[in-house]
């Protein structure tokens, strides 16, 4: 091949990146099942998610200037054909999802071996790939029905992944069943909403939807469609009070699954929510403003306080972190509801920062559970001293969760409070600060158990093997790094927020 041809191929390949982003893990899943070898399965999964991560980085690099990539599947022009749309927001979330996927896999290799029966390992990796595909697809696509399809792919695989925890604790089965019921209701609501929007507009392409809704104005069908979409996605987001499925699912799923889900699944759902709130509909519509002010803000505040409060009284560390996730989702939705550039950047940057911090924490817990057998505080006594590196990772993640300066969580909290002040909502600003005091309490309970209680005498716990340790350290490092260097996280989040605030105009070419 001549140099010119190589260049052509490279350019063609670059053009195909949006679809490759989703296709690579999608193809990897059946491949893993066919091959059926445990080690190869892992290698394929890792290669696929690493490739997805590289693609996501490339995409972000292409759209960081605020541009939009529109990819037509099969060359069929939208709105008839399916369109994939990448802008700064989607590229950022794609990067988070694929990045966490790539980091979790080496960890999963050791942790899965300890938690899941051997014969299910290849299936685990296949499902993991499907879940990754679904989440990436939800974010990459610009077609409403396609979102539903990918939502179901990710949800169905997630139910099974959660149920795989049954080998250790049979309650994983009921947790998965709960999640299945709630998740299905959510997905059904979402698709009903889509049906209504389709009825009113005759299109399912997001950009086209936006245009037609803007043209024809609001009618009852569109409003009902909006309501169903928001509630349906609210369930997947675990928006308070639709969060019921989350604590059990996170507590009983295998550690690697919990880590992956906590960092990515709810974030992809928030992404879809953002798309509908800002790109399809726009805050100019009165009913949307009212939804944000009268539903999002009160429920976000409730989440921040009630869920944190519940977290304080948990006796199981995984469960405590799960409730903390519900509270943190409250921060993100609150940032969205502020409807200004700073608030939206805060929400977007918190999606990434919280994803990283929670992943580090859940990985740490997972490593400790490998030795202690359970995540109950009583079984984790003094483990921070016995497992110094794991303990240090949990400290970094915990501090970031509180939002201590010098950690990623601080940046999101700062932006969120600044956004509240910019709106003149000083009561909300104070509420954010007060609720983060609850985070201090529950995080410190964890530190005291890990460091200030004596380990049992026959405790032989040591830091986990290197493949688990390195991902944990990378995430903990990221918690600190993104607390100082915010160019990538906050910089992209700002571009994303501007794109969102440009409203449906941002969806046009």
């Amino acid at each position: 091949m001549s140099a010119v041809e190589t260049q052509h191929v490279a350019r063609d390949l670059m053009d195909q990146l949006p679809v490759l982003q989703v296709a690579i893990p999608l193809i990897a899943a059946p491949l893993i099942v066919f091959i059926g070898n445990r080690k190869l399965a892992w290698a394929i999964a890792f290669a696929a998610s690493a490739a997805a991560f590289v693609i996501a980085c490339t995409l972000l690099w292409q759209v960081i200037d605020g541009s939009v990539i529109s990819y037509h599947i099969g060359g069929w022009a939208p709105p008839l054909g399916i369109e994939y749309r990448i802008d700064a927001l989607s590229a950022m979330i794609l990067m988070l999802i694929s990045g966490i996927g790539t980091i979790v896999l080496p960890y999963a290799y050791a942790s899965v071996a300890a938690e899941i029966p051997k014969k299910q390992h290849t299936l685990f990796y296949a499902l993991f790939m499907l879940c990754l595909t679904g989440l990436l697809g939800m974010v990459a696509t610009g077609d409403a029905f396609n979102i539903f399809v990918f939502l179901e792919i990710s949800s169905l695989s997630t139910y099974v992944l959660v149920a795989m925890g049954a080998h250790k604790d049979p309650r994983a089965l009921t947790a998965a069943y709960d999640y299945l019921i709630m998740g299905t209701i959510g997905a059904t609501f979402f698709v009903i909403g889509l049906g209504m929007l389709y009825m009113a507009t005759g299109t399912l392409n997001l950009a086209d939807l936006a245009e037609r809704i803007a043209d024809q104005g609001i009618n009852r069908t569109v409003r009902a469609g909006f309501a169903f979409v928001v509630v349906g996605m609210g369930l997947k987001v675990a928006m308070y009070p639709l969060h019921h499925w989350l604590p059990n699912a996170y507590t009983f799923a295998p550690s690697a699954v919990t880590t992956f889900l906590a960092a990515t699944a709810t974030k992809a759902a928030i992404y879809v929510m953002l798309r509908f709130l800002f790109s399809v509909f726009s805050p100019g519509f009165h009913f949307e403003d009212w939804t944000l002010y009268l539903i999002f803000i009160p429920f976000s505040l409730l989440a921040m306080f009630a869920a944190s409060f519940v977290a304080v009284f948990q006796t199981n560390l995984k469960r405590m972190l799960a409730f903390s996730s519900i509270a943190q989702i409250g921060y993100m939705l609150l940032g969205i509801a502020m409807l200004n550039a700073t608030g939206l950047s805060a929400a977007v940057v918190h999606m990434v920062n919280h994803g990283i911090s929670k992943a580090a924490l859940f990985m740490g817990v997972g490593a400790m559970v490998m030795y202690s057998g359970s995540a109950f505080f009583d079984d984790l006594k003094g483990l921070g001293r016995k497992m110094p590196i794991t303990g240090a990772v949990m400290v970094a993640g915990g501090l970031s969760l509180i939002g201590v300066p010098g950690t990623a969580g601080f940046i999101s909290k700062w932006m969120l409070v600044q956004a509240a002040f910019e709106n003149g909502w000083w009561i909300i600003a104070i509420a954010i600060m007060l609720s983060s005091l609850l985070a201090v309490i529950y995080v410190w309970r964890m530190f005291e158990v890990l460091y200030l209680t004596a380990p049992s005498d026959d405790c032989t716990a040591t830091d986990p093997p290197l493949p688990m340790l390195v991902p944990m350290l990378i995430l903990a490092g990221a918690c600190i790094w993104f607390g100082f260097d915010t160019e990538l996280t906050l910089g992209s989040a700002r571009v994303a927020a501007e794109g969102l605030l440009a409203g449906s105009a941002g969806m046009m070419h």
Partner: protein
Amino acid sequence: MDTSTALYLTMLIPIVAMAGNMVFSARENLRDGITFLCATLTFVCVLVILCNVGNATTGPYELFEVVSGLSISFHVEPLGLMFAMIGSGLWIITHIYGIGYMRSNKEQHHARFFACFSIAIAAVMGIAFASNMFTLFVFYEILTLSTYPLVAHKGTPEAVRGARIYLGILIGTSIALLLTGVIWTFTIAGTLDFTKGGILEGKIAPTLLPVLLGLYAFGIGKAALMPFHRWLPAAMVAPTPVSALLHAVAVVKAGVFTMLKVGIYIFGIDFLASTGASEWLMWLAAYTIIAASVVAMTKDNLKARLAYSTVSQLAYITLGMALATSMGALGGGMHIAMHAMGKITLFMCAGSIYVAYHKTEISQMQGLGRIMPITFGAFLIGALSIIGLPPLGGSWPKFLLMMGAADAGHLTIIGVLMVSSLLNIAYLLPIVGRGFFRPATDTRLPKTFSEAPLLVWLPPAITATGCIVLFFYAGSIQNFLAPIVESTP
């Protein structure tokens, strides 16, 4: 060495000390030697900055920008330089004392202890040289977190409880109040740089100004203003070197130093004076001065009494800022130095008594002065300096504060300061009196001269001498600090 290098080194060297402690955790002489060397080098670096800069203001030196408009950057100005000198200078002395104390007292986990101690010093240097409120806040929180393991050091339920109060109040106030205030300031002023004359003038409604000031005054929990003072007595469960350097000097002084910085460079003394926004704070500080002294009189535990005395003395500095006169601010600034020297002496003496005879309650200390004359002599000098009697350093800042109060036209405040001195006499001197003049109650005590080990009694003797020396150099300190209150050039 140029100033910026020396400045970064003051933060880097303590980090090296921390690393040294972690790496050589099993070899105590090497480890303590490294820390001593690092402490000396840090002090030398501060001296280099002093020689280069004098009492001018240089900088800012920006390390990097975190978010646009918010950067980690440093500058050198007289108040910060003085604070850095106190922190690093007393670190050397406290380290010597710490070696003696930790070894003779058979405390555990020396390496962890000295490592956390070093991080705390690095944070203090960061606070001293921070050129904007954002940087200062970052280091402020690092200081809180790095001292938490020191307070919880013993690991007993009592220590854990104390550490919980310590952290709860310090993190709680700083996140709920201080951070809110800082972000509010940033939103309305668009900057957080410490600027002479303040950054708020004309940007905030006068009615809201006292509210914002309140967020700072209560948010800076380290300044131990009532009602957020409880963490300081709680922190006394820590080993005495921690109480001496951190809870009499570094941590609490970081608090009042921040208070002064905020008053002078964020609000601006003139702006505060013209709006009267700080008047309520002045009365609260006055209340704290008296109330804490009264509480101190009721405490039989020596360290608890000293802790309440610190609460009272810290309020002097807050008062200096709240008076909103240049004399008041100068007096407050100088009191940072004078009180540091006096109080560290008292704490080291308390530790010395504990090391030698394991006495913690004042009522058990009868007759100890006769067998530990150096310790009790140093205690007497420290106490007199805290009370504010000449020829000891502590007399000058009180003098300046009274002049500041007169300038501001608040004669009641002068009365408060005088009553406070009397109360100081009432709760500090009886300790010395009991030691020297009352017969020993404990028959197991030796009859003849029998001091604590050399490394434990020598450091308080040095700082006690320092209290006397400072009396004669008060003029230079005042001249050195003068630029901070000069009207904008």
